[in-house]
Every structure is written in C-alpha cells, then in structure tokens.
C-alpha cells in the first residue's frame, strides 16, 4: 500500500516552482545580511552564508591580531572648564615685545590651546616695522628650554621663594648696615617701569648701585653723542630716507644696533621697479665680511685697524680737511662724492666702539647735514645705554673688595666680560651674589642664589625702545615653573606688595598716559596699548651742541690705527649668538651663518690667500679644518680656520657669543669664548686686536658647513660658462632695459613647449616671488620656517654629514675675485614645479600636485625610496635619516656608535616640555620619510576657511607663508597668480623675474627677481681703475 501523502498547504500539494525552490532553504525568505565589500554583490544578494562566515572569521581574526599589538597610549585630557578665549584648533595671537640685551622686536605670539608656538612680527610697530630677526623668531624655543630654572636656588639646592626672600633681604640689610656696596649689574634696561622699580630699590637700599653694561658694547657711540650733542643716546637712524649709506665696519643689516628696523628701512630704497628705477647706493668699508658688506654696492676691503683710518679718509674727502692718518682709496673719494651729492639724505655709520671714531662719524654726518633729516634725536634710540666703565667698575670693585654684593639681571659677565675667568672667582668670593637669569648660564654657576625670572612670554612689562615709543609685554602663557618676575622680586624687597601688573598699570597711568592726548580715559589707552603692543606718544631727547675736538680725535685714532701690526684680529658679533645668551638655543645653532654657511661652531675667518699660503686649506669633502692658535697678550684661542673670500690678508675674524660652558646638553658646548680678547682702551672695549701671533696646532676639527665654495662659473671646454641660477645687472643697465641680465628668459619661455596636456588651475594658483635685491640673507625666514613647520633639528654631526632638515635655505654665491667678491644670497625652497621631476618618479605616488599648484607630500604614503630627492634639480627635499623628532610610536634610543646615539641629536625633543613648541597643525614627521616646503599649506587652508566662513573671496595678502611674514625687508611676495590684481602676479610679469634653471621645463612656482647693483658696469670700472693707476 502506497504511503499517504501529507501536505502542508495547497502550494506544496500543487508543487509550485517557487515553493519548491524555497523549501530547500533553511529560511524561506532572504536574510537581511549585507554582502561583502562590494555593492554589486549586496544588491544581487549572492553572498552566501559561507562567505559571510568567512568574512566574519577573517575580520575577527584581523581585529584580534591588530588589537593585540601593544601600541603606547598617549593620553590627552579635555578641558573640564574651557577657558573662554580658547577654542581648540583656533590660534590666538597676543601682542608683546621681545627686548633683551639690545635685541628688540614688537611681536605677535601665536598660541594654540594656550601654548605659545610661533613668533610673528607686529606690523603696527614703528620700531621693528613688522619684521623679525632670526633670534627673536627663535625666542619661543627658549620658553620650553631644558636649561630653564624651575625653582629658586641656593647653590645647587632648591629653596622656596619665602626662604630666598628672607635670606637675601637679610644679607642686603646687613650689608646696608655695614655700608657694604651692592651692585645691581644689568644690561641696558629698556623698561621705564623697571627703571622706576630700580630707583625704588636704590631708595630702600642706599648701598645699592646700578651699573649698566652691554656685552656687545656701544659705549663709544653713546659717549661720542654725549660729547657731540650732550645726550648719551643713539640717534634715530632713518635708513629709509637715505640715498647713500656708508658703513665703516658696521653690520647694520645683521647685528648693529636696531638692525631689524634698519633692514626694513634699507629695503625701502633698494626696491626697484620699471616705474621707479632708482635705488640707494651703499658703500661698506670692512675687514671681516658681514651680510651688510656682501649686500653693499661697493664693498671695500680694509684690515681691522684700517677701518678707522678709512673713517678719517672719508672725513677728509667729505669736508675737504686734511687730517693725518686718513686712508687713501679711490673708493673713499667715490663714496664722498656720492655722499656730497646726497647731502641731508645720507648716513655714515661706524661700527667702532672707539669714542673718537664715533666723533668722526658724527662730524661727517653733521658736515653732510644729516642731523634732522636721516638722523634725529627725536625718537632717539634707547636700546643701548650701557657703559664700558660699568664693566670695569664691577671688576675693580670686586677686586679691591669695595663691592660686597652683586645682583645680576639680564647679565652674564662670567661669559661676556673681558675678564671672564678672574670675574668668576671674584663673584664666588663676594658676600652676596644673586642672579635673576631664567636659564642656566656661567654667572648662575658661581652665584650664591638664583632667583629665576619669568621668560618674557610669561611676563608683563613695558619697553621704551625709542624716546616716546612704548611697547607692552603681556604674558602669553601661565608660568610654567616656580619662577618669579624680576620686577615682582623688586616689589617684594622694597615692601610694595607683589603685584607687578598693578604697579605697571599705575606707572603707565601716572607717567605715560599724561604724555598723550589721543585717548580720553586711561583704560581705553591701556587696552589699546596692550592690544596693539605699541603706542607712540611722541618725545625726544634733549640735546645741546657740544664741541668736541675732531682733530684730536682723529690724531688719537690715527695713532691707534698704526698699532695693528702684521696680523690683526677682529672679534665680531655673530648673527645668531649675540652676546652669548642664545647659546642654549639649538634652532639658532643650526642656522648656517649667512656669510660662512657654518653651523654649530665658531671659527677663525681668514683670507683664501692666507689659507693657501700657509697650507691651511680644508678638505671640503670630509669637512676637516685645520686648527690654529691665536695669541694676543695673555689670551689665546684655538679654533679651526675657514677661508672666506673678501677677508683681508693676515686678518682673523672670530665670532663672539660662543664657548658657553653652562648649558643643558653636551651638544650645546659649542665653540670658544672670544670675549677675553676685548681690550680696554681709551675708556671702551675694542673689538680689534693688533699684533696677534698665530701658530699651527696640527690638529684637525670637523666643521658642520652646509655649503662649500663650489664655483657657479665653470671653466672647461668651450670657455667660461655660468650657470643661470642667479641673475644680476646694474642700475644703469636696468634703466636702459628692465630685462637686463635676464634676457634669455624670453627665449626660454618661447621654447617652453610640452607634448603632454596641461592641467587647469581654476581656483588659486599659489606662487611666490623672491626679490634677490632685497634679500639680505639674515635667515629670519629659516627660523620662522623651523618654528612653523616643526622642522627637525639634527645637531652638528648630522649637519656635517649634510643632513640638515631645513626646508628653506639661503644659498650664497660669490662672483668676481677672491679678494673682493660680489655676493648674492638666494633663498632656496621647494619650487613647487608645475612640471615637477619629483612627482613622476615616486613609485607609490606619495608626492603629487594639487589643483592649486602645490607640490604636496603625503608622509603616510611615503616609503622612503628617496628617488624624488635625487631627481629634484633644486635639492630641496629632505629625508628623515633617523627619528629626529622622537615621533615614532616605538622610539629607539641609544646605539653603539656616535652616529646612532639618538639622544645626542634629538636635542631634548623627547622631553614632553620641549614638544610644547610643536605646531599642532603640522604633522611631526617620523623616520624614513621625505619632507619639504609645503608653502605653509596649513596657513593657506586656514585663510581659505576664514574667507569661506565669511562667504567672500580670499583677498590678496591674506594667505601668507611663515618665511614671508618673518622677512624684515619684504623680499618674499606670496599669493595667487590667477588673481590678476595680486602683488605676486605683478611680480610674475615683471621683466626682472626668472625661474631657477627653468630651461629644463620644471615650470617652478617660486620665481626670483634679478639683483640690481647700483654700481658701474664692470667694464666701466676697469677702465676707471686703469685711469687711477
């Protein structure tokens, strides 16, 4: 009997196709399981259960493996109470002022999440004119320096402020009782309120004497003005008004007095255009080369002791006098002729610290009618007030025991007093010695107490850089450590409470507010002052005509000039180290000196002829330099010899500010101290030393030089040929033909063809134009770039191996003779080529081009083949040879040889405190990737977003790069070339504009403008010289 058939429903009974199909499935309907990664698969629903399980299994396993790798956890803590003014990701800017040891800039401090990270120039300032110097740019690093004191100290021991106050006050009181003299030894105090506080201290302690010195001394200049004009100040130099500038050993573009202002003023008359083809003419008489000399139209090489003789010669030539001892030189006549043709619109400056030299300079300026025009005592410069007598007074007082106690503020005499070694012992013997330094220095090492001052970015304050011009300082961050502002300490000691901010406000209300009439009401005035960082209330220094004896001055100068002997030494202020306080700033150490291109050391500059004659030429490949010993009197110094074209024969130049011994890291024990060579003569310290003896030591030392003297001009088959990397012309030629020196550009552009389709740049097309004529090589841009873009520091050993990481470098090219070359500085950065050789060779497309013309670097994608760097014709790409930034998740420390000792070149960046200076908008690069200039893409993005939020088109000049804003001379123009009204577009179509090696069709987006020298064309000059002969 057949089995019965059971059925569940009619569908089954009737054996419907669909029913049968579904019956074999576990679930009769499709399950809502999403398929694999592909959408196509999902829509068709073909992912089987097997596939689902496979994928599940794989992803769980993968996630497990990935999660089980232990990656170090870095915690970030959100604000529990958000400060009102801080929006994460948005920068705040605060106006404040850098003013220490004579370096002065009104600045804006960029802070992110409460951390100061970058210094920008304050464009409202009439003193620094929006420019900054390399040193001021680097000052933000000092805030986070490992060398800063974190507590008040007695000897090496940490103490509390209460203890410190009690003990020091007790000492001061007892010294007062015994009438023992206490010296407050400081650099020039530029803060009026601090001066008031010091007066209060002197009132409270009658035994306190305030001695002001400047390690880089301008004593001679100030004393001369006292004699000539009855005012011991420097005049206000208006370089912007000068048609002719004659410098005699004064590096007014690099280091001399308020050089940042002078640089920007100098540039005003150095910018040429077709519409206005005029420019000032500059003469420089100098021995050791400076950037000022290298930028001068005529640089006259004289030996150090002849600098003052040149001044006498100039005086004779200008006034028609016949003082004895004047240097005779055709160029002196020429300079005098130019000066006389520009009466009232010229400046003569002398870098000498000899009062007689300065008297002569004053006399020349007076004869030229420059006072009241280019020089004035209205807004006289107050940055330097020190006297060399103070330095000798301190030394003598301590030596004869009349000075019982010393207080050091902004002063490090153990490093930069000429009697350094002896002074250290004398300070140790004093009954009381207190230093207010913020960071370890040689003087704090021998002081009994260190009462650390705040960093300037943590301080309130005021500065009067010029008579009637006031800058304000405000804190940009709370105190990082248990430090106390110097002024507050003075308040405590004089029993006036402990609130310097209140004191400052009251001082301004009573002393500065009444001087002005613009603001009605103190608070409006004060708020504006703090907001703008600067107020001008007007003011001048009273002068009275003096009548110094020029003949005597000249006679004494002439006598001194004769004492030079065969070998002469000039110790000079370097562009980066100043008077030595910058010695713990690795950013500055890593800046190649613009003249010598050497980092991380000082050295003896000599002439190429001297080096050749004495067999002292270095091995430029291995960077091994011969060390020689210089001896003058009791002092000697042993340093490597560097031959620099343009140095007079038998002349040595040694930079000051090196040889720090009290620093945080062995890396910073750099160079030798040359301050002991300063010799007291005629009441001031001379930086030129005669009758120097030199001897070979037979030793070899490495110097971390970034650019050696490779010739740009090639002599070989087919005659002499010059690489068209830099282009220059003379003013006369430029007047005739605006494309002078740049003639072949038209041909290059005409031949610029391609087989490939070109890309549209419909939006912005970022372009930079750099004027070689106004670039002084001052290197402020290099530090600004470091700071903005978290560029790694690598240290001396790595720089020697040519591994510096700078995204922006200043190339230096010589032309002409070794004895007196012409020099061009050329900032070199990624050229953002529209046809970039680096882009097509990257195997993983880690570097590519944006639609806005930027050559971009994708660090994440980079595998480090370095092919792009090899194929870059400009060699601007930088490779992270090691984990320079301690940026890797797994940091590698230590190693077997010097090369891999990471701690030695990470320079403290692995310390959390030092990392606070990093810009959070810029990726910190890890080991093994290439990096390079990004045109500050984060700043461009920020400005674009701001414009977008405000629903408007980006204005020209809104998007800026860090190098551009730091430049005191405005040599860098940046903008959108698609905007036909922009400055950069105008520069682009100018006849002076060219691209570097653009004949290889890289289509660079960085363009340069020819250097124009205001001098006769070389052929004319030769005929003239022949004439003279």
């Amino acid at each position, binding site marked *: 009997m057949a089995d019965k058939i059971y059925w569940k429903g009619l569908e089954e009974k009737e054996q419907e196709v669909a029913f049968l199909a579904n019956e074999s499935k576990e679930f009769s309907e499709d399950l809502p399981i999403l398929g694999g990664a592909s959408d196509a698969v999902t829509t068709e629903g073909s992912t089987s259960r097997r596939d689902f399980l496979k994928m599940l299994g794989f992803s769980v396993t993968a996630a497990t493996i990935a999660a089980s790798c232990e990656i170090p956890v870095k915690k970030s803590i959100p604000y529990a109470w958000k400060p009102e003014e801080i929006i994460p990701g948005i920068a705040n800017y605060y106006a404040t002022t850098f003013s220490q040891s004579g370096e002065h800039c009104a600045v804006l401090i960029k802070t992110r999440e409460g951390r100061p990270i970058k210094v920008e120039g304050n464009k409202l300032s009439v003193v620094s004119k929006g420019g900054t110097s390399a040193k001021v740019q680097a000052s933000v690093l000092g805030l986070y320096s490992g060398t800063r004191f974190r507590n008040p100290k007695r000897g090496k021991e940490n103490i509390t402020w209460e203890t410190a106050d009690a003990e020091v006050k007790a000492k001061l009181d007892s010294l007062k009782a015994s009438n023992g003299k206490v010296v407050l030894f400081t650099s020039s105090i530029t803060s009026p309120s601090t001066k008031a506080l010091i007066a209060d201290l002197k009132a409270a302690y009658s035994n306190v004497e305030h001695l002001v010195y400047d390690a880089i001394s301008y004593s001679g200049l100030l004393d001369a003005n006292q004699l000539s004009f009855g005012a011991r100040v420097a005049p206000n130099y208006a370089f912007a008004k000068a048609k002719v500038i004659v410098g005699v050993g004064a590096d007014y573009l690099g280091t001399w007095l308020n050089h940042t202002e002078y640089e920007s003023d100098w540039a005003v008359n150095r910018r040429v255009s077709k519409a206005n083809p005029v420019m000032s003419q500059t003469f420089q008489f100098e021995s050791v080369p400076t950037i000022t000399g290298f930028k001068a139209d005529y640089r006259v090489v004289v030996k150090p002791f002849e600098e003052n003789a040149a001044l006498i010669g100039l005086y004779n030539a200008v006034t028609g006098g016949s003082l004895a001892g004047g240097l005779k030189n055709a160029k002196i006549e020429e300079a005098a002729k130019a000066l006389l043709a520009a009466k009232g619109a010229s400046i003569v400056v002398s870098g000498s610290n000899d009062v007689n030299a300065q008297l002569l300079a004053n006399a020349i300026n007076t004869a030229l009618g420059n006072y009241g025009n280019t020089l004035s005592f209205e807004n006289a410069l107050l940055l330097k007030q020190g006297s060399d007598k103070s330095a000798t007074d301190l030394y003598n007082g301590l030596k004869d025991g009349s000075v019982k106690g010393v207080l050091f503020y902004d002063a490090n005499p153990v490093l930069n007093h000429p009697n350094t070694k002896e002074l250290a012992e004398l300070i140790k013997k004093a009954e009381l010695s207190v230093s207010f330094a913020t960071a370890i220095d040689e003087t704090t090492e021998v002081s009994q107490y260190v009462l650390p001052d705040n960093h300037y970015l943590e301080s309130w304050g005021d500065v009067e850089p010029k008579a009637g011009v006031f800058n304000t300082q405000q804190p940009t961050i709370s105190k990082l450590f248990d430090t106390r502002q110097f002024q507050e300490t003075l308040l405590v000691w004089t029993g006036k409470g402990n609130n310097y901010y209140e004191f400052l406000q009251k001082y301004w209300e009573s002393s500065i507010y009444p001087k002005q009439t613009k603001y009605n009401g103190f608070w409006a005035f004060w708020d504006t002052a703090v907001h703008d960082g600067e107020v001008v209330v007007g003011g001048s220094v009273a002068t009275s005509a003096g009548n110094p004896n020029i003949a005597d001055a000249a006679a004494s100068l002439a006598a001194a000039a004769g004492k030079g002997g065969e070998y002469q030494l000039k110790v000079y202020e370097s562009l980066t180290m100043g008077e030595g306080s910058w010695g713990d700033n690795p950013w500055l150490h890593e800046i190649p000196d613009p003249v010598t291109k050497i980092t991380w050391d000082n050295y003896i500059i000599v002439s190429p002829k001297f080096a050749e004659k004495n067999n002292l030429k270095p091995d430029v490949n291995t960077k091994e330099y011969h060390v020689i010993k210089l001896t003058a009197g009791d002092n000697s110094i042993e340093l490597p010899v560097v031959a620099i074209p343009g140095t007079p024969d038998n002349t040595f130049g040694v930079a000051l500010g090196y040889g720090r011994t009290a620093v945080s890291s062995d890396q910073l024990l750099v160079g030798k101290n040359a301050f002991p060579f300063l010799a007291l003569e005629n009441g001031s310290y001379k930086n030129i030393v005669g009758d120097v003896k030199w001897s070979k030591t037979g030793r070899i030392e490495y110097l971390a030089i970034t650019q050696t003297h490779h010739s740009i001009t090639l002599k070989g088959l087919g005659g002499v040929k010059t690489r068209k990397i830099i282009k220059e012309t003379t003013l006369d030629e430029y007047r005739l033909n605006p494309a002078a020196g740049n003639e072949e550009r038209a041909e290059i552009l005409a031949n610029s063809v391609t087989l490939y389709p070109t890309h549209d740049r419909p939006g912005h097309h970022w372009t930079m134009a750099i004027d070689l004529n106004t670039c002084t090589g001052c290197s402020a841009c290099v530090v600004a770039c470091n700071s903005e873009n978290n560029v790694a520091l690598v240290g001396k050993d790595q720089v020697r191996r040519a591994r510096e990481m700078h995204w922006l470098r200043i*190339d230096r090219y010589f032309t002409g003779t070794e004895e007196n070359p012409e020099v061009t500085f050329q900032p070199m950065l990624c050229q953002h080529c529209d046809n970039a050789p680096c882009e097509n060779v990257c195997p993983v497309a880690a570097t590519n081009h944006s639609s806005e013309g930027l050559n971009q670097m994708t660090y994440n994608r980079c595998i480090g083949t370095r092919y792009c760097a090899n194929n870059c014709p400009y060699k601007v790409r930088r*490779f992270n040879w090691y984990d320079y930034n301690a940026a890797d998740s797994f940091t590698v420390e230590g190693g077997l040889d010097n090369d891999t000792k990471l701690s030695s070149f990470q320079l403290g960046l692995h310390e959390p405190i030092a990392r606070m200076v990093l810009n959070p908008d810029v990726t910190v690069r890890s080991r093994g990737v290439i990096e390079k200039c990004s045109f500050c893409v984060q700043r461009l993005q920020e400005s674009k977003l701001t414009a977008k939020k405000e629903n408007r088109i980006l204005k020209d000049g809104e998007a800026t790069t860090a190098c551009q804003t730091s430049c005191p001379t405005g040599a860098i123009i940046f903008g959108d070339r698609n905007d036909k009204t922009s400055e950069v577009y105008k520069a682009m179509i100018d006849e002076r504009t060219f691209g570097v090696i653009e004949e290889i069709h890289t289509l660079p987006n960085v363009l340069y403008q020819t250097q124009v020298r205001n001098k006769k064309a070389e052929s004319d000059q030769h005929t003239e010289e022949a004439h003279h002969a």
Partner: protein
Amino acid sequence: MHAYESEFREPLINGLDKNYTKITDDLVKPTEGRPPLIWWIAVGLCGMGALFFFFCLGWTVYYGIGTWGLNKTIGWAWDITNFVWWIGIGHAGTLISAILLLFRQRFRTGINRAAEAMTIFAVICAGMFPVFHMGRVWMGFFIFPYPNTRGPVWVNFNSPLLWDVFAISTYFTVSVLFWYSGLMPDFATIRDRATTKWRKFIYNALSFGWQGTAKQWQRFESLSLVLAGLSTPLVLSVHTIVSFDFATSVIPGWHTTIFPPYFVAGAIFSGFAMVETLMLITRKIFKLEDYITINHIESMNKVIVLTGSIVGIAYITELFIAWYSGYLYEQYAFYSRAFGKYWWAYTAMMSCNVLSPQLYWFKKYRRNLVVTFILSIFVNIGMWFERFVIIVTSLADDFLPSSHAYFTPTWVDWGIYLGSIGLFLTLFLLFARTFPVVAIAEVKSIFRTSSEVAKKERAEKEGAKHGGFIGSVQLSNKDEK
C-alpha cells in the same frame, strides 16, 4: 638533431677515458661523500659574511637609513650601486642558457647550470637593496598594486622604480623556472645513485619523480625552448628597465638615451666575468677541468672583449655628447666625473672596464687561466665603479652648486656590500655541494659529437667520409647504466 660540428673545433669534453658512466660519476661526485675541508672553510667564512649582511640590514631597519653615509644631495649611493651591480651579474646566466640555446651554441652546456644558479643568487642579492634602501621598509608593500580600502590608492605607473619591481620579479621567476626545470633529470640521476633512504626521498621529491620516459624528455625539451623564448627578451629588458631609473630622470649624467644598450652590454660583460671567476674556482676544486675546458674560457673571454669594448664606446660617446650638446650642466657632470672629486672612481672604471679587457685580443691571454682570473675580478671591480660613478658622481654635482656634496661610506655600507658577496658565495657553495654544477643530461647530449673521445673515434675512422656521427645522442640515463 645535431649541430654542424666544425672539424677545427676543439672537443668540448676532454679526456679519453670518458664514457657516459664516467660523466655521471664525475659530475655527481661533488654532491656525494664528505666535502673537502676547503669547502667547510669557505662556507664558514662566506656564511659569516652572509650573517653580517643580515645583521647590517637589521641595524639599518632598527636605527634608520642614517646609519649609511647618504646625505641630502646623494640619496642613493652604495645601495643602488650594489643593486645594479648584482642585477648586471645576474645577466650572464640567462644569456648563456637562453640566447645561446636558441643560437645552438653547444659549448654552453658545460657552464649553463652554474651560470643560471649564479643568476638566481645574484638576483636574490640584488633584490635586497631596493627593499632595504626604503626608509620605511615595513610599508614596502605599498609598492604592489593591490586592491585596498584607502581610496583605493594606486601605485604610480609612471615611476621607473615600479617598472623595476615588475621587471625584476618577472626575471627572477622565469630564471628560477628555467634553472629548476633543467635540474629535474639531474636530480633523478642523483636519486638513482643514492644509497640512503633520505637522500633518495629528498632527491626524488626535488626531481618531481622524474622517470626519464620519452614523453617526459619531449616535454622537457619543449619547456626549455618555451622558457628560452620567454627569457631572451628578458635578458634585454631587465637591464634596460633598470637603466630607465636613471635615463628618465632630469639629473645631468643620468638623463641619457644611450643607457639601455650600454647597461645591457655592461651587464653581460660583468655577468660573464663573474661566471668566469666562479667557474675557474669550481673546476679546480671539483676537478671538472674536462667539462669546463679552456675552450669555454676562451669563448667567454671573446664575449668579454666584445662587450667591454661596447661599454668603452658608450663611455666615449657620453663624453662626446656632453661636449656636443653644448649643455652646461651635462658638460659639468662629465667633466667633474673625470676630473672632479671622484676622479679615482672614474679612473678605476676606465682602466678596469675598457683597458684591461683589450688584453683578450691576444689568444695567449685568452687561454691563460691566471690572466683570466685576474681580469675577471678586475672587470667586476670596474663594473662596480661604473655604477658608483653613474649614481654618485652625477648626484654629487648636479644643478645647484650650493648643494654639491660628498659621499663617505660608513661601516654599515661596507658591511652590507661585503655581506652581500658573502651571501652570494654561501648560496653558491651550498649549491655546488648539493646540486650538480654541470648539467649532466645536457653534457651527455654533446658527448657523442664533440668530446675528445668522439674526435678520436672519428679520427680513427680514417677514409670514412661521412663527416660526423649517426646515432642518437638522446641516450637515456638508464641505458648508460
């Protein structure tokens, strides 16, 4: 299918006592029994070199490429020099086995096995450098075009470095296949002589169970021909593509259209020299003088003098074009190459590569083992310097004088270079001990036509004017036993 045999051609296999059994004995012997002491010493030394190679690579990966002597201007130096050098050396094997097979140059049978092995080991060494010269070697997989979730981000097909990846991996794969397929019958021969169970098992597995049937032989021959056809263009393409790394760039001294032929000639030049170096040692130690005869050496020396002269012409052409172009940067690049800070490298290159092989115009020197050995070393030194000169001197003095720099190697550079030679020799020594260094089956194929025995037999058949031998050369191994 025998080739036409010249009456004047010297025998390719020497020794009157030779027969098929003797050949098997002679050629398999080095893999049997205890190796000589000198082998142990050599393996010990080279093995240490190989270990040091890996130590230095580890050091580099752990600390960074900074442990090498490179700098901002010279981004490649010994790494890519070594890479191109090894790749060049790796050219001879395929040339000998593929091109000479197609041209029916039967003298190749004595040397092709070792040359192919050398090729593979040289390519292994070469491959290490592009991998470990990467700053982030752990991200090296980015270089493969694989589907990914990052967009997907694709590789840059415009980059010659990417072409290298494909060129070298293809070359390596085909070379390994060619080499291995040729080894299968010989493995079977070793297996058949094996006395221990393990030895039998291993060689059986290695021979893929080769039986020596007619069908197998027929397929074997077809495969050889197909692979030879595939490899022939590769011999030319690999070094051409390697030369594109330089030729497609903008750097004066690199940007040169002469590079592809010049590189290929140079590669064959250095490859033959390296084969000679190794063969001269091998034939001595393993007593294979009868199979790798002076005749072989002379043939290779002829190739060396030809390719060396081609390379020499290329050098002179470069100089001429630099002058003729009137292009300043090009002129400077070549001027400083010859007379600049690296003059010694250029001099070494010129004298080793161009001058020294000219000795081979004289038969006396072509057939002199000592001269051959010394010159083979010279040629490889010269060819190393050629790559160094091209890579380093061009980078060191390019467009902007401000960036001109100098390269000084560190101990890690030395360690990696010398270590790679250690690795190469270790692999070769292990190969020589375990694999038949001379292709047994292929040598047997020429025994009846061009061995000394054959020549003698033919001489004895005086008056018989049928100029050659009739009879199968395809005698199976089995028959011989």
